[in-house]
């Protein structure tokens, strides 16, 4: 459904999720210089609408997999904020007990199946999760998020072929922010005909080039419905822009590899503001306040959580 088809509640829900993720990552960036965060951070500031729009089309039992840049997906799907911050702080209460760091967020409760720091590795893992759904005949679908760079890894094509061959319920979502670290598409892609290529596997493939959360949400909803009907995988190429440096809390428009001008249209089309402007101001300030409060509590929680016991180093090498 596009914006005019959404209810006021839908809009409130979308705004809350967008604003919450934006503010959480802004706070992470603010705290970062204090060295309380013991982990690299790959912020999704500017890219939130992709995770929020897609995941809003899912139900709780659907699965999501992502990468080191999937704080947004983790949070949108319902992953614990306290667990995430504590994990970044290296505390025992972190989502991985301090063993995974910011690049490997997981939440079995929210069906976030994990995140990987080796580009594209999560793609076949998510396909495997989709195979499980088919074998166990659940009605769940799996969504996997990855960057434009991940589409250069051979495993991406192997995964598309297998998912299409077995008509698996998986939605492939490429967050195309135009860069792999500092390297633009022009240096990595022979052409930009990605959705056309994916379509040759018999996979419905669509692009959203303007970051519009409503288009993203309605396309996702259509595709997820089709998947639940057993029609097999689908693919979304979502154009977006990374507002901060590849890794770390700062902007890097002075680094020379990209200009602030290129970012400006994206910043002016900030979906957090766009959706924020569509909801009742009093509701908005209520939500904003709740979010600030939740974040403050999460930072507190992480701050005051215990560090892991030394013996934890040796736990979980093997499952028993």
């Amino acid at each position, binding site marked *: 459904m596009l914006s005019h088809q959404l209810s006021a509640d839908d809009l409130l829900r979308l705004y809350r999720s967008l604003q919450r993720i934006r503010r959480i990552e802004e706070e992470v960036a603010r705290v970062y210089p204090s060295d309380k965060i013991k982990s690299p951070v790959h912020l999704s500031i500017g890219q939130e609408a992709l995770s929020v729009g897609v995941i809003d089309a899912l139900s709780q039992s659907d699965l999501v997999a992502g990468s080191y840049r999937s704080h947004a997906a983790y949070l949108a799907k319902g992953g614990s904020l306290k667990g995430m911050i504590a994990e970044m702080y290296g505390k025992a209460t972190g989502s991985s007990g301090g063993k995974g760091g910011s690049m490997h967020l997981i939440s079995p409760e929210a069906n976030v199946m994990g995140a990987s720091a080796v580009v594209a590795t999560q793609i076949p*893992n998510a396909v495997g999760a989709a195979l499980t759904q088919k074998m166990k005949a659940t009605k769940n679908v799996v969504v996997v998020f990855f960057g434009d760079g991940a589409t250069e890894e051979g495993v991406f094509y*192997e995964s598309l072929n297998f998912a299409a061959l077995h008509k698996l319920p998986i939605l492939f979502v490429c967050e195309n922010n135009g860069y792999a670290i500092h390297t633009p598409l022009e240096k990595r892609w022979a052409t930009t005909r990605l959705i056309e290529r994916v379509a040759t596997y018999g996979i419905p493939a669509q692009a959203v080039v303007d970051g519009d959360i409503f288009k993203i949400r309605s396309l996702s909803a259509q595709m997820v419905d089709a998947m639940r009907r057993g029609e097999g995988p689908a693919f979304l190429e979502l154009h977006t822009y990374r507002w901060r440096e590849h890794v770390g809390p700062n902007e890097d428009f002075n680094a020379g590899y990209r200009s602030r001008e290129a970012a400006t249209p994206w910043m002016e089309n900030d979906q957090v503001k766009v959706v924020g402007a569509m909801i009742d101001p009093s509701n908005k300030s209520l939500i904003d306040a709740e979010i600030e409060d939740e974040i403050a509590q999460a930072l507190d929680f992480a701050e005051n959580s215990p560090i892991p016991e030394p013996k934890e180093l040796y736990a979980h090498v093997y499952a028993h």
Partner: protein
Amino acid sequence: MFTPTNAQRVLRYVDALREGVEQEMERDPDVFVFGLDVDDHKEIQGSTHGLLKKFGSSRVFTTPLSEDAMTGVAIGAAMTGMRPIHVHIRNDFMMLAMNQLVNIAAKAHYMYGGKVKAPLVVRSMIGKSWGQGAQHSQALYSMFMHVPGLKVVTPSNAYDAKGCMIAAIRDDNPVIFVEHRLLYFTEAYVPEESYVVEFGRARVCAKGDDITVVGISNMVVESLRAQELLAEVGVYCEVIDPISLSPLDAETILASALRTRRLLVIDNAWTNCGASAEILARVMEAAGPGSNIQAKRIGFAPTTCPTSPWLEKDFYPSPSSIAQEIYAMVKGENAVSWTPDPERAKLAYQMQFRGPF
């Protein structure tokens, strides 16, 4: 070969493998078998025989040639509740699966703080002879031994093949299951009922006081032949089969070596950073100075595997080369050297084998 008292049925290694998988598939609906050509009429040399017919194509299916993604699929399926068995016709091809096995499978349980498990079995076959050559003859399991989070098992006989397969399938961790192709048609007593061979417990296959001989995979068979020939000339070997390489039962090997004061490890692999290096290092660390243990390794020649049989014969350890090495170690370098009867040093499993593949 090991003979459990209650088992009177003789089975081939390949059939024991198959039976182990079949019994687990019957017991647990989450177990499935996939990999290139598991469902064709050659049935991975017969090791998947009948599984398709019995369990259907949803639980026994071939794949595209996509080892990297298929490994990732197996891991993802395992992380979400299935128990996949992924089959490779050659161990060499697992080099395409390294990223998923080393960076994901081995680490998932740990880096997610114990919140997920990856109960996965990866079967692969080691090729030998008839021109298998550079890319179809490798045994690269030490690479997997190097990485915490993976288990590695190399059963040398039909009894262990079944028991280890069942144990591997039930294990909640990724298990690298390595089968030597020439063992497929060797026979042993194999109980019909389901049983597990526990990992991390070595087996003493022959008792002796002169030297401790550790054989790995098919080298257990070749060591036992050497042991028979040597017994006739009064040299008594204790032959040990580690069965699983990770976990590794170093204690059993150490205890034997401390008694015999001689240790020879024979691997069907390169020795450099191999399983044989690890075994010597563990013994050296644990035995301590003054233990006076003479130790040696035999494995592949430190070369790529050539196809010409006239070159290949020196690439591999053999009952003869093993026996001669043992004889020299026991009798001392300057003892008159001794060579076993070449005819009796030949192994049936080697002679049966004929090309093309």
